[in-house]
């Protein structure tokens, strides 16, 4: 997709990229919210090999969060909460980039905190702390 968008010049490319990304995020949120069951197709190659991985369970956790089952999501993988936050943040950045709330949640400090939380959650999961 990135390579295709490179070929369209200037503003048209920016508008198209923004719309494509918005559509992808809305589609993802709609899928996680509306689907009754999750397709049992792990995205991670390690899941097929039976190897434990720090991010195993994230898709299921995101699905649980969008269905309101927060404790189930936490025990599947805490990274799910970070992914949901990132999806909502990206949605707000793309739709209202100058909004005060958007500027508070989308800056360098928030980025580093999120990255730190991402690794903490992954290592907790890997070491079976949660």
């Amino acid at each position, binding site marked *: *997709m*990135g*390579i295709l*968008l*490179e070929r369209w010049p200037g503003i048209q*490319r*920016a508008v198209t*990229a*923004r719309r494509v*990304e918005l559509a992808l995020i809305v589609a993802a949120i709609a899928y996680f919210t509306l689907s009754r069951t999750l397709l049992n197709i792990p*995205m*991670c*190659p*390690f899941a097929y*090999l039976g*190897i*434990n*991985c*720090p*991010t195993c369970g*994230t898709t299921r956790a995101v699905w649980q969060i969008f269905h309101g089952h927060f404790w189930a999501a936490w025990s599947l993988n805490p*990274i799910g909460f*970070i*992914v949901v936050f*990132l999806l909502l*943040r*990206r949605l707000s*950045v*793309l739709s209202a*980039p100058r909004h005060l709330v958007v500027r508070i949640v*989308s800056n360098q400090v928030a*980025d580093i905190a*999120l*990255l730190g939380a*991402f*690794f903490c959650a*992954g*290592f907790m999961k*890997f070491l079976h702390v949660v």
Partner: protein
Amino acid sequence: MYCQNCGKAVAENAAVCLSCGALPRSGNQFCPGCATPTQPIQVVCVKCGAALNPGALSGSSGERIAPCNPPRDPVLMAALSGCCIAGLGQIVLGQVAKGVVIMLGSMVIGVLTMGVGILVTWPAGAVDAYLVAKKLKEGRSVGQWEFF
């Protein structure tokens, strides 16, 4: 700075040389640092060491990835590279070959170490995607194989 086409002094931020009308860095006759005459084939000035053609010294002849608008979210790229498939964040950013190598490399390392190697490849891939996306967000271009 001196015009590389005519060797006359030009201001650092000049768009064109006021003596010859060329772009100051477009010529190949003079050194921009000391105005010494140079050969078109030279990459650095042999008198002062200034780079005559910065692109020739960057090490990679491949295309560089330009920042896109709107810029990608660095943490989302790190999460893509860390959650779904290792290297996916890099592929979305435009570093396709590098992303594929990371993907295959992390799988091989993971299998060979029975999963323990993931503790190294997982944060490394995510931090790499984060830092590359951050550079692009700051408006800098990155090479196809640029890490961290």
